[in-house]
């Protein structure tokens, strides 16, 4: 419909001449939207297609069976959500009744914590991975060493965390090669947040803390698959986080020594594993300082239990 020189306002002309499109036009628009949605998953597909030319990841298959994201029927005997993860989810995805409503709060079956103090950042995690009510492993490494001065913790879906943080390590290395300097903690956490934001709403489950030391000093960011990215001095993530917060909040001072801070982190995770059924195994402790990170200790919770409870008897 053409619009010529007017003696009336454009809005009046526009409303007097409604534009009607054909069915072919609407079908084309729908297809284009689908294509651009597929292309927007470039982060995932570009990585995976680089090696395997023929084994391309075809998104459309997941629509054709009528399986919505996160709602795959796993067949006889297997419950939804029956995969190795650090999480127990209330539901793998929206049930038919709920529709788009979804529980915003995921329960992550783990306890990870990190806090800043005068000598850097302390990172403490447990090591249990559960698949439903079955403990799949007691020796999982929930701290990913991105590079010698950056650490990432894992809470939520195990595969999601390890895949995306491994991809983050690759991106950080590319940044170093391009810019001839180390990446800052803020930039690294932003890269991760932007990567997972493209998949928001599709069922990724990841709650991670990016910890490091850059030219601004100690850095600590919390990033999750909902799109949150916050800077802070203290975070605890997971189903045991409330118990850990209680212990750390009561003992945290800025002027702690390295030994005291390590002991505080260790005690906080131990108390969380004591009360939370989905946390346990070993306590892994890392310290991030100006020279990078060091692995302080790895102790079994049973041994810590004897150590803390013995003096009481």
């Amino acid at each position: 419909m053409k619009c010529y020189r007017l003696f009336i306002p454009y809005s009046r002309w526009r409303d007097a001449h409604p534009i009607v499109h054909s069915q072919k036009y609407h079908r084309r628009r729908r297809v284009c939207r689908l294509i651009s949605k597929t292309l927007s998953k470039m982060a995932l597909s570009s990585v995976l297609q680089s090696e395997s030319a023929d084994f391309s990841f075809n998104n459309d298959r997941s629509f054709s069976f009528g399986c919505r994201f996160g709602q795959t029927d796993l067949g006889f005997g297997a419950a939804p959500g029956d995969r190795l993860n650090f999480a127990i989810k209330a539901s793998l995805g929206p049930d038919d009744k709920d529709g788009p409503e979804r529980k915003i709060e995921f329960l992550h079956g783990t306890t990870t914590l990190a806090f800043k103090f005068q000598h850097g950042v302390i990172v403490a995690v447990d090591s249990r991975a559960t698949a439903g009510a079955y403990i799949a492993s007691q020796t999982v490494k929930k701290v990913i060493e991105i590079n010698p001065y950056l650490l990432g913790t894992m809470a939520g879906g195990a595969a999601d965390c390890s895949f995306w943080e491994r991809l983050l390590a690759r991106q950080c290395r590319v940044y170093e090669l391009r810019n001839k300097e180390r990446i800052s903690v803020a930039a690294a956490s932003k890269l991760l947040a932007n990567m997972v934001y493209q998949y928001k709403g599709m069922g990724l489950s990841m709650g991670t803390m990016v910890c490091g030391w850059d030219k601004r000093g100690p850095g600590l960011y919390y990033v999750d698959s909902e799109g949150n990215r916050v800077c802070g001095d203290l975070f605890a993530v997971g189903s045991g986080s409330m118990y850990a917060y209680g212990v750390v909040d009561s003992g945290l001072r800025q002027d702690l020594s390295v030994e005291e801070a390590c002991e505080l982190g260790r005690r906080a995770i131990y108390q969380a594993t004591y009360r939370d059924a989905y946390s346990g195994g070993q306590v892994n402790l890392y310290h991030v300082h100006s020279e990078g990170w060091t692995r302080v200790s790895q102790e079994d919770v049973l041994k810590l239990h004897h150590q803390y409870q013995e003096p009481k008897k």
Partner: protein
Amino acid sequence: TMFATQVYGDNGKMKEYHYTGPVEHRFSPYSFNGGTVLAVAGEDFAIVASDTRLSEGYSIHSRDSPKCYKLTDTTVIGCSGFHGDCLTLTKIIDARLKMYKHSNNKCMTSGAIAAMLSTILYGRRFFPYYVYNIIGGLDEEGKGAVYSFDPVGSYQRDTYKAGGSASAMLQPLLDNQIGFKNMEGVQHLPLSQEKAVQLVKDVFISAAERDVYTGDALRICIVTKDGIKEETVPLRKD
């Protein structure tokens, strides 16, 4: 060819065998074919064992369908879960191994295969391969290595792992006998190859007693620097 249907009652829950009202059938692309896989890593050897029963629902499709697949001279993979995805996944892994061999002029090491499998599985994050994988083999130093996976690609290196339908029954037994967990005042002796093979046989005999999807026969692949040796042991057929 079989296609599985999930039978839902009007309250959304799975219905039992008897018919009590209108049911809604829904096509499921997955089916569960059973099977148990086990891998143990020793000082200079690795053992991958699986039963050979292929079932679906209440039927047994085959009594001779082993779930261990040889990848290279030093690596064996055990896959259990949905048989269709197991077959496709092993085909994809074989092809990727060939591609690597042609590009890099050497065979993939066990650790590299594990890392590659993790990305292959994660590539289908939103429509997963319904397969529980365990890789057993020798690492670059010649020591035994076991890598266990979940259906979407999370993996870690272990000393021993059980996967598949009877995994929850076998894993605690292995924790006790190989990991010496929950035992006080016991000497931690290293595991010899003969003892490991005998332990694997005993463990599968126990699994066949109590798990309906495990039985018929046991296939053991022993990986050493001299190659891969296969052994078959009969199990309960009921």
